[in-house]
């Protein structure tokens, strides 16, 4: 009898919890605001605990990454050495890469990115699960002026955008490696606005639309955000450099492979550009 009662109660509990989960899923899919506010409040409540634990346990994670990623680190070191050599060679031709970039941007009339108001945020949660390799959470939110869709950069260039409505003190950044991430770009020195998209963790970006077959693009050419009408990204943010060029004869377009200039692994601080294309337009 007691076992029967217990089974009945556990079935009732299961049904109750399943209905609750289904309700939450439905409300979240419909962007139900009170639920989002509750999520934000809960995240804010847990956040001090998490920051404390991060500070204490962060070195353990770093040490682990050092041990398990040794081969990767060695390969990266080699790559960096090669790049350094290339840069040293480049330096002979051009003493200041930043001046060169600025000059190139000036040539196509792009304003300098640093004129845009911005907020620096610390990455507080990166990849907590095995299915969220393309997003990180930062400790800046709506109270800092951050809104959905704003571009996020590091010194290397664009790394992603704010995804969804931010909480008061935190927001989620979708990284440009996300296969669903798309950004309007142009190769510096050309006028064709093309669409670049992510190809997954550690992969390059690909440009498959918009670049006409007769547009002159070279390997090594810089690619920046186009900032065309109503684009959510301002013009001139570095995206990367062209590493491969292919041609789609059927569609008469060029297909580019672009190596991102900003590293999206092990992010610690990022800058959110408080850029509102509609405000800029008005």
């Amino acid at each position, binding site marked *: 009898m007691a076992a029967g009662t217990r089974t009945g109660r*556990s079935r009732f*509990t299961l049904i109750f919890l399943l209905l609750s989960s289904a309700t939450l899923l439905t409300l979240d899919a419909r962007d139900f605001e009170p639920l989002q506010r509750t999520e934000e409040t809960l995240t804010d409540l847990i956040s001090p605990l998490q920051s404390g634990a991060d500070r204490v346990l962060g070195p353990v994670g770093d040490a682990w990454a050092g041990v398990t990623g040794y081969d990767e680190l060695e390969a990266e070191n080699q790559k960096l050495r090669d790049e350094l050599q290339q840069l040293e060679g480049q330096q002979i031709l051009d003493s200041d890469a930043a001046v060169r970039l600025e000059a190139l941007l000036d040539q196509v009339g792009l304003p300098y990115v640093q004129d845009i108001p911005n907020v620096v945020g610390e990455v507080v949660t990166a990849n907590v699960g095995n299915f969220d390799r393309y997003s990180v959470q930062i400790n800046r939110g709506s109270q800092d002026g951050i809104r959905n869709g704003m571009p996020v950069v590091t010194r290397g260039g664009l790394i992603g955008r704010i995804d969804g409505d931010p909480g008061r003190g935190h927001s989620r950044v979708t990284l440009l490696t996300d296969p669903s991430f798309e950004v309007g770009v142009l190769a510096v020195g050309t006028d064709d606005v093309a669409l670049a998209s992510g190809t997954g963790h550690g992969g390059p970006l690909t440009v498959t639309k918009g670049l006409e077959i007769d547009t002159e693009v070279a390997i090594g050419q810089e690619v920046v955000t186009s900032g065309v009408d109503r684009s959510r990204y301002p013009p001139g943010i570095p995206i990367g450099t062209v590493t491969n060029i292919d041609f789609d004869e059927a569609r008469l377009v060029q297909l580019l492979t672009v190596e991102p200039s900003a590293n999206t692994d092990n992010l610690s601080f990022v800058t959110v550009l408080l850029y509102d294309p509609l405000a800029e337009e008005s």
Partner: protein
Amino acid sequence: MNATSAYIRSALFLLTALVLHMALFSDLRVLGVAPEVPLAIAVTAGLVGGPERGAIAGFAIGLGIDLYLPTLFGLSALIYTVWGYSVGLLEERIFRSAWWINVLVTAAATAGGLLIYAVLGELLGQANLYTDRLYVVMGVAAAYNLVLSLPLLGLWRWSWPRLLGEEL
């Protein structure tokens, strides 16, 4: 031990596990795969506490981790609830488990839970879940949770010290 103290212990255990997962375990990656601590929590709760406690623990830890995942809020809670309940039911009716069976069940349930998560997530419109990499994630996470299962089973027994025949 009274019911209140058992609930407090369970809540503390769940909160600590959530924070540790985010601050430590999610960084301990092999082949880019981290242990699935929340899923292991749900499964081991079912193994130690039976279907009802498995479902409640799965729901609670699922909601906690959903706060930090870009997927729909409630997806992990839904799957972990079902998984905690099912494993608890199997344990009660079939396994009557030796410790090594519990360990193997945790690993197998981890792999199965991840597969269900990816399939259900894709059906609900979430991108990048069911990919070629899924089977690597399932294998490595199952191996990780196989190792983690013993301490987690011990911690659940600490949270619910006198379970057999006792209603909390």
